C-alpha cells in the first residue's frame, strides 16, 4: 500500500462534525495549559479531517497524561504507565502502522522516569506525534520539582531547586529526532500550526509545549508561567500549513528573497515558514538547531533565558521504525490472517526431517 492510501485512511475527505472530535469534560484545574493544548488537538483534528477511528492516543501518568480522555472520544485511548508510554506506542504502531498515533506526556513522565524510553523511541524514529506538556512541576503529587524546573527556583513545597534543567528539545536533537518543535500553551495559533505539521510528519515528531501549572508553578519568576511565556517567547517563524491539495509555487530549500522557507512534509502537505527577523533559523540544519537552543539557555545569571518557539528541526528523510522492520506493507501485522501467521504442516515436517538422525 502506498503512502497516499495510508493518508486516505487517516484523513477523511470531509471532516466529521466538529463535536465528534471532542472529549470528556476535563478534570484538570481551571486555566491549566493542558486544557488549552487539548482544545488545539481537537481543532487541528477537525481542520485536518482526521479519521478518529484510525488515530490512537496514548499517555503515561501525570496531569498531562490524563488529558487524552479530554479529546477525540471516538479514538482508542490508552493511559499506560508512568514514563512508559513510548514502549506501548511502539508496540501498537508495529502491530498496526496504519494508525496515526499521538502520545501525550509531561515533563516528569518524559524527563525523569521516562527519559530512557523517550530517548529510545526517538532513536527508533517511531512514527508518532509526541507531545510533552511541560510545566516544570509534578502536579498530581502536589508540587515537587521536575527535571525541567529552573535552577535556583524556589517553590513553597519543594524548597530550592539547585539542579540545572534538562532541555527536552536538546535531548530529542541529540537522539536524532526527525521533528523537534517547542511552543507555548499561551500561543494557540502556533501550537495548531506545529500540530498540523507534526501530524503530517513521517517519523517521531516531538513537541515540547510549555504548559503552565496554575496550581503550583505559574508565578512570574517561573519560566513555565503564562507571564514569562508571554514576555520572553521568541517565535522563530510564522508558520503556515498548506494541505496536500493546495498547490503552492515556492519550492526551494532555504529562505527565499521574501524571507519564506517551504518545507515538504511526508504526507504531501507543506509548511511555509516566514522569517521574523534577519538571523533566520534554518530548521533543516541540525547543528544550527542545537546551537540555537544552547545559546538560548546559556545566558548570564542577570538575564532571562529566551523561550525559543517554533519548528526547531525537521528531517523528512530518515527511515522510520516501520521502514527498518520492513513491515510497511498493505496489511498491518494485527490484521494478518492465520494463513500468513501459521506456516503449513509441510514446513514443520521438513524442519523435523532435517534434524532427524
Amino acid at each position, binding site marked *: 500500500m502506498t503512502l497516499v492510501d495510508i493518508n486516505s485512511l487517516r484523513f477523511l475527505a470531509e471532516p466529521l462534525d466538529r463535536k465528534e472530535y471532542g472529549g*470528556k469534560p476535563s478534570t484538570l484545574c481551571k486555566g491549566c495549559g493542558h486544557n488549552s493544548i487539548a482544545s488545539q488537538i481537537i481543532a487541528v483534528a477537525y481542520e485536518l479531517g482526521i479519521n*478518529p*477511528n*484510525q488515530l*490512537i492516543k*496514548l499517555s503515561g501518568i501525570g496531569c498531562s497524561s490524563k488529558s*487524552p*480522555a479530554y479529546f477525540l*472520544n*471516538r*479514538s*482508542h*485511548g*490508552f*493511559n*499506560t*504507565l508512568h514514563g*512508559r508510554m*513510548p*514502549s*506501548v*506506542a*511502539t*508496540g*501498537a*504502531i*508495529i*502491530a*498496526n502502522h*496504519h*494508525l496515526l498515533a499521538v502520545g501525550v506526556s509531561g515533563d516528569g513522565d518524559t524527563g525523569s522516569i521516562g527519559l*530512557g*524510553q523517550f530517548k*529510545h523511541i526517538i532513536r*527508533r524514529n517511531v512514527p508518532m506525534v509526541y507531545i510533552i506538556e511541560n510545566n516544570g512541576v509534578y502536579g498530581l503529587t502536589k508540587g515537587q520539582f521536575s527535571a525541567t524546573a529552573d535552577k535556583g527556583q524556589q517553590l513553597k513545597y519543594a524548597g530550592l531547586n539547585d539542579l540545572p534543567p534538562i532541555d527536552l528539545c536538546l535531548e530529542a536533537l541529540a537522539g536524532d529526532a526527525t521533528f523537534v518543535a517547542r511552543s507555548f500553551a499561551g500561543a494557540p495559533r502556533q501550537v495548531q500550526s506545529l500540530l498540523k505539521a507534526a501530524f503530517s510528519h513521517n517519523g517521531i515528531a516531538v513537541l515540547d509545549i510549555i504548559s503552565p501549572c496554575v496550581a503550583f508553578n505559574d508565578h512570574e519568576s517561573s519560566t513555565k508561567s503564562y507571564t514569562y511565556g508571554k514576555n520572553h517567547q521568541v517565535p522563530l517563524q510564522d508558520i503556515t500549513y498548506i494541505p496536500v491539495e493546495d498547490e503552492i509555487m515556492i519550492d526551494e530549500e532555504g529562505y527565499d528573497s521574501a524571507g519564506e522557507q517551504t518545507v515538504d512534509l511526508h504526507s504531501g502537505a507543506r509548511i511555509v515558514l516566514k522569517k521574523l527577523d534577519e538571523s533566520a533559523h534554518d530548521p533543516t540544519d541540525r547543528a544550527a538547531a542545537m546551537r540555537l537552543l544552547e545559546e538560548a539557555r546559556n545566558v548570564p545569571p542577570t538575564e532571562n533565558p529566551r523561550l525559543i518557539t517554533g519548528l526547531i528541526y525537521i528531517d523528512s528523510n530518515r527511515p522510520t521504525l516501520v521502514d527498518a*522492520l*520492513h*513491515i510497511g*506493507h*498493505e496489511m*498491518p*501485522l*494485527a*490484521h*494478518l490472517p*492465520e494463513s*500468513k*501467521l*501459521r*506456516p503449513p*504442516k509441510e*514446513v*514443520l*515436517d521438513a*524442519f*523435523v526431517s532435517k*534434524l*532427524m*538422525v
Partner: protein
Amino acid sequence: MVQGVEALPREAADGSGSLINDFQLIVATINGTGSQTSNTAIIRSLFKMGIPVNGKNIFPSNIQGLPTWFTIRVSKDGYIARLEDNAILVAMNPNTAVQDAQELAPGGICLYDEVFTTDQRYRSFGFVENRPDITYFPMPIDQIVTSAEVPKELVDRVRNMAYVGILAYLIDIDLEAVEYALHFHFGGKERAIRPNMQVITTAHDWAAEHYASPCPYKVVPMQETSGKFLLDGNSAAALGAAFGGLSLLAWYPITPSTSLADAAKDYLEEFRIDRETGKPTFAIIQAEDELAAIGMVIGAGWAGARAMTATSGPGISLMTEFTGLAYFAEIPAVIWDVQRMGPSTGLPTRVSQGDVMAAHFLGHGDSRHPVLFPSSLKECFEFGWKAFDLAEELQTPVFVLTDLDLGMNLWMTEPFDYPDQPMKRGKILTADDLEALKGDWGRYRDVDGDGVGYRTLPGTEHWSAAYFTRGTGHDENANYSERADHWTRNLDRLARKFNTARRLVPAPLVEHKPGASIGLIAYGTSDAAIAEARDQLSRAGLTTGYLRIRALPFNDAVPDFIGQFDSVYVIENNYDGQMAKLILMEYPRLADRIKSLSKCDGWPLTAHWIANAVEEQEEKK
C-alpha cells in the same frame, strides 16, 4: 567390536549402573576454549548410534577463562535426567582437575591432558594420579594435534577434538557416527569438518596404539533413537511461537532466555516471510530493557497482534508493573520465563524453579496469571503456539515457565505435533458486529458469563468502536470510575475469568499405577528425574501415582489426585516449595496429605535425590 546390550549384562563395581550404555561422563574445560563443538560431537555421535542420551552444559557467567563442564548421560533404559555420579572424566582444565578427579565415582576412569603431570608450568595445580580405584589415561593433546597436521591457524579451534578421538577409542564410539555429528554441526561444510576429523582419527589411532589398560565403560549401538532428534527447549519454544503466529518479539538479553530470542529470529526469518509479498509477517525488537520489552508486547497486544517476550527472573521483576496493568486492562501478552537462580550475579547460569509464585501473582495485589509449565521439547513447542491462543481467549498475560536445564540443554524428542486446532483469536468485535449491536457494547461487560468481555481493535471503522484503556478504576463500559461497587464487580468478574482459565489451560497429566500407596506431584523439567525415581521407588517396594502439573490455575484433577493418597509429595527445584504452598492455599482441607520436597542448589534434580527424600519421609511414618 560390536555386541548387543544383552550380551554384556555387566554391572558397575559400585552397583550404580551397568558399564554398558549406562553411565555419565563429564568433560571439564575452560570457558571459551571451543569445547562446545567437541561435546556436541560426542553427544550427537552417541545419539546417532541409537543410544538414549542427554547433555548438560554447566557453565559460569563468563565469556572466557572460568571453569565449565559438560555432562553426557547415556542410558539404555532411556533415563535422561542428570546422574549425581560421573563414571568418566575428561579433565582439560588444570584449575579444577584435582577436584574433578576427586569427585569421580569409584571405579571410574580419568582422561587428562598429559601436560598436567609432565609440564613444570602445571605443577602448582597439584594434579597427580593418586586414586588407586580409578584408571588414568594421560592424553598427549599437543603431540596429537601436531601430528594431525592441521593448518596452524586452526590448531586452537580443533585442539579439543583430541579428547573426542581418544574417548571414541576408549568407549567404542563409532567414528562414522562422529563424522556424521560433525557433518551435522558444520552444516556439511567439508572445510570445517576435515581438520576436526583429522585430529579425531589421529587421536583415536594414537590411543589404540598406546593405551594398555582396558576401559570398562563401553557404548554399543541400540535402536532407541530412531524417529527422534536432539534439540534444546528454547529452540522448540521459539519454533512453537513461530507456528503460533508470533508477530512481535520484544526482548532484552538475559541468560538463559537469550537463545530463545535468537532461535525465534532464525525461525521467523526462515518460515515467516510472506510468500506473496516477500515481506516479513513479524517484527523483532531488542528493547532497551525489560520494562520496554513488555511495554511493546502490551502495546502490540492491545492493537491486536500476537506479541511475546522472553526473559528470566530478574526480567520478570522488571515487568511487574506492566503485567499488573495488562491484567486489569485485560490485554493479551505471552511471557516466557526461562528460570535461573537469583538476582543480579546470583547464580545466573544455574537452574531453578524459583519464579512460580512471583510469576503467578506478579502485580500489585489481587492478580493471578495463568502459568504454563512445559516438561519436554514437545510441550515447549506446543505451549509455544498455545500460549497465544490462551492469552487472546482470556485477554490476559500468560506466562510460560521453563528453565535453564530444559531451555539450554540438548534433549531427545519425538517430532512435534502440528497445531491440532485453528488459532483462537478471542472475542473481538468487528465493525459489522458493532453495527449489528447498534453500537451497544461495553468493553468489560460479562455478556457470556465466563468473565471475558469483548474488545475492539484500534482502527475498527465504526462510530462506537473506541474505548479508553486504563489500569484500575473503570466501569463495564471502560469509563473512569472510582466507585466501590464498580470495582468489586470488576474483581468478581476477573475471578470468573480465572475460573474460565481453569478449563482452558493444559490439564494436569495423571499416571496411575495399580497398588500405588503414595502420590507424587511435580512440574516442568523435573519430569525426567521423576520417571526414573518412580522406577527406583518401585524396586524398593514403594509404588507411586504421579500427577504432573502443566499449568496454573489448577483444575479438579489436582484435589482428586491428592484425595486418593494419605501422602502426596510435591517435588520441585526451589527452596520454599512454592508449588506445594500454592496447592495448600487452594486446597487447605487436604493440607495433612501434602508434603513438600524441595531442593535448590543450582543443579537439576536427580532421581537419586528424589527417591531418597521420599523413602526417608516414608520411613518416618
